[in-house]
């Protein structure tokens, strides 16, 4: 019963919390750049404003263009719902392990890219082509991270991973550090953050994600933006859930533990958001063909994580 209840609460929690996370990143970046910056609540206002506007759809667009924002948003939302953040005792948690979460994000990307191609503009195609290329390198790295974690914990389910890490069986492993590094790099790439992509550029040939959603407006754009926000929150939660699960409640824990879990989760995610902003301020965007090196590095780190596991077993 609590599992079902928490499943439903969690659904709304992620979607309600996501804009705040993005607001925090933007505020921190603004402060670091010497600006005052907008309130962290500004993303909520943006989404609301977009929802109220009429949607302009290009003449050449098919119905896929209009339905893609819904598919994209729902699949990200679904993935974020399944990932345990506050408690592992949620009704939907066994529905998808980490491999399936990666695949759900694949659905998002697939339809965003198709939407980019639908209108038949050069910018849309450019964004779609680059996004699919970056993702095709990021996804293997992500799967290798999952492989190394599953070798360590004998599971690919996020809830079981949390339980495993909390049970204290895992010492200070080199592999864990390497896997964390790889996952951070993948998260940066998948969310289109600097140095892979710049979420705040327009009219530049460097943009990837923005180029795909260029033709969107009104409620459709609101959904696309919301999907990007939820995806950022999802990745931040994933990192905390796997590598710093302290505070996450288990099955049978009382409401106090749940509140503690909630507080711990929001604190961890907001801290990560601040770190992301600091990192983004420090580095410069790279050339598109350098991304292959960056993500190749992530893949190699994940592979090294696996090999170090063998080594530490043998010792």
């Amino acid at each position, binding site marked *: 019963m609590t599992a079902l209840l928490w499943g439903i609460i969690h659904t709304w929690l992620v979607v309600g919390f996501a804009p705040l996370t993005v607001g925090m990143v933007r505020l921190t970046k603004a402060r670091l750049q010497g600006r005052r910056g907008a309130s962290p609540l500004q993303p909520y206002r943006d989404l609301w404003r977009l929802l109220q506007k009429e949607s302009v759809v290009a003449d050449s667009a098919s119905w896929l263009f209009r339905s893609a924002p819904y598919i994209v948003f729902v699949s990200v939302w679904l993935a974020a719902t399944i990932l345990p953040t506050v408690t592992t005792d949620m009704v939907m948690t066994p*529905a998808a392990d980490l*491999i399936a979460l990666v695949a759900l994000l694949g659905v998002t990307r697939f339809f965003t890219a198709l939407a980019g191609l639908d209108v038949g503009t050069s910018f849309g195609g450019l964004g779609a082509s680059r996004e699919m290329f970056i993702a095709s390198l990021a996804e293997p790295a992500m799967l290798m991270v999952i492989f190394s974690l599953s070798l360590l914990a004998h599971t690919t389910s996020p809830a079981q991973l949390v339980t495993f890490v909390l049970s204290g069986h895992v010492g200070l492993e080199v592999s864990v550090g390497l896997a964390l590094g790889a996952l951070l790099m993948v998260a940066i790439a998948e969310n289109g953050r600097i140095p892979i992509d710049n979420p705040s550029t327009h009219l530049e040939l460097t943009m990837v994600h923005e180029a795909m959603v260029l033709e969107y407006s009104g409620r459709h754009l609101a959904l696309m933006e919301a999907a990007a926000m939820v995806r950022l929150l999802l990745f931040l939660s994933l990192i905390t859930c796997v590598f710093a699960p302290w505070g996450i409640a288990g099955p049978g824990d009382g409401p106090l533990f749940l509140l503690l879990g909630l507080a711990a989760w929001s604190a961890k995610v907001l801290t990560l958001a601040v770190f992301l902003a600091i990192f983004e301020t420090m580095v410069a965007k790279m050339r598109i063909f350098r991304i292959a090196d960056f993500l190749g590095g992530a893949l190699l780190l994940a592979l090294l994580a696996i090999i170090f596991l063998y080594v530490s077993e043998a010792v």
Partner: protein
Amino acid sequence: MIIGSAMVVLLALGFLAVAGRRLPFIHELVNAGCLLVTLVLTIESATYLMGAAQGQNPSILLPFGLPWMSAHFRLDSLSAFFLVAINIPSALASLYAIGYSHHLPEAERVTPLFPLFLFGMNGVLVADDAFVFLVAWEFMSLTSWLLVLSDHKSEQARKAGTVYLVMAAFGTFCLLAAFGLMAGAGGAYDFASIRAGHAVGLTATLVVLLALLGTGSKAGLVPLHVWLPMAHPAAPSHVSALMSGVMTKVAIYGLIRILFDLCPTVGWEWGFVMMLAGGVTAVLGVFYALMQRDLKTLLAYSTVENIGVVFIALGLAAAFRDHGEMGLAALALVAALYHVLNHALFKSLLFMSAGAVIAATGQRDLDKLGGLFNRMPITGLCFLVGACAISALPPLNGFVSEWLVFQALFHGPTVAHWAMRFGVPVVGVMMALAAAFAASCFVRAFGIAFLGRPRSDAARIAEDAPLTMQVAMVLPAFLCLCLGVFPVMVSTGIASVVEPLIKVKLPPAILGWPWLSPVSATAGSYSATMIMLTGMALGITTILVVHHFGSRKLRRAPAWDCGHAEDLPNAQYSADSFSQPARRVFGSTIFAARETVDMPPPGDTGPARFSLRMVDPIWDGLYMNIVKAVTVISGLVNRLQFLTVRQYLLMMFWTLVLLLLIVAARQSS
């Protein structure tokens, strides 16, 4: 019995098509006949599978075949599973052919061979001795070869036919030798005696190698795949669907039959080799597919990729079995069979949709298509479902089998040998790369062909396919969804097929329905049913919220494109520009891709030229060298034709001496 008579009807249909070629509705009649027969075969073998628990294997002896034995036919759960897996797409292709035959330039070259091709494939599956197996195998090869040549006026098809014939002959030769080795000197060619006499040592190694070469060349294992992307697209689309979706599965059947039933003494080393070969096949297949502009060639290369995935799973199964990890072996084999079924469905679907596009526009080049989603909504939707399924997107079927393969792969290091432990992560990277680039490849295929603005006049006026073709495409799309959303039911069924081979029944849902959790209660689970239901709930919520709180106004306007929208459809992203990042990063090493841009000097108003050169590493690097070697050797041998009589006599004499020496050496030892 019913299966046997159904197959005789297929044979008869082939002759009917020749005899009645002047009748007005002969194509429709024969194709409808094929539809009926394949449906009967599907239902019959499905009912057998449902009741397969009794362990009865009906068999028939027929008085033909080799002089010293009759022809054996037998049905067991493995062949029944493959009968289902190949006859569903065959039925759909027959239905499709009823409407599609009008679009063929020379349908009378296709219709008689189509039922014979089906007959050959079904024959391989029910064969119970090496002779019947090989005869049916050759029947399948030759009929499909003739089908490839049905468009005999095209130079490309003729070249494809030649390459295919050579590769098919090579494959059959390998299988012939493999069966010969298994049967031993006594010539016990029926499968029961082969099963009884286990091949060991060098013989077993040779058998596995030859079986891999023989079936791999038919399935499209790199580097034996070269004929596949030439031959599959050259045939009419419903035949391409069968060649890619079904005939490759018959080859997989042959491999499973040999490695897991007839000669089950395969060591883990061969599992490792298969896994590695599968990984290379998957990655290369998808990179080739990503570079293709021809829609059907792209699909054919994607078949190569999927065959790679199946080989990874089969290799894992063999390795696990050798190490006594029977549960994991069953998991890997279930994953392989699940993928076989899935690929049979979505590849037929994709080829049939591609056929509908070609019938409507006359174009196969992606850069001549575009905007078809508005003109051909049903075909477009079917292609989209197929593309999502093959890109392994949940909740469709492709993801389930890929998930199972990944689950098996992640347990690969259980096999405690350093080669496996280091090999499995490498294969994992290859598999993950293949999966990710497959999605990229199908975004490109669907996005360029169906979305955007029309790139040619033919695409601008295209119309959707006739009703029979639409039905034949909608049904597999629906099946893809069903196989994806109810994975536990399907994998339970497949687990009972695998049980006689591995002697362990995989429990696909340890956590109970609907959670697919084949390894253990904690090792990870997936439930497409729940994902589908929750996704629908969330989707409805989103729509309600957006429409309740937001504006519902919608306005159509010209595309914005940052203010400089181009009217020219050629200004859109093309197929080649879509794959440019991957081509720059991987293509420059794999395909030696070179891009050159010729810019006119400043002030000159002439057009700039862009040209792209790519080299096929396997065709040019391997096969052309083989061709060169054969030419040199035949040039040398050619001298033998111009000797004098005396020299010929001398040669015969020396040969005789040599033979006598060999006999003497054997007798003394």
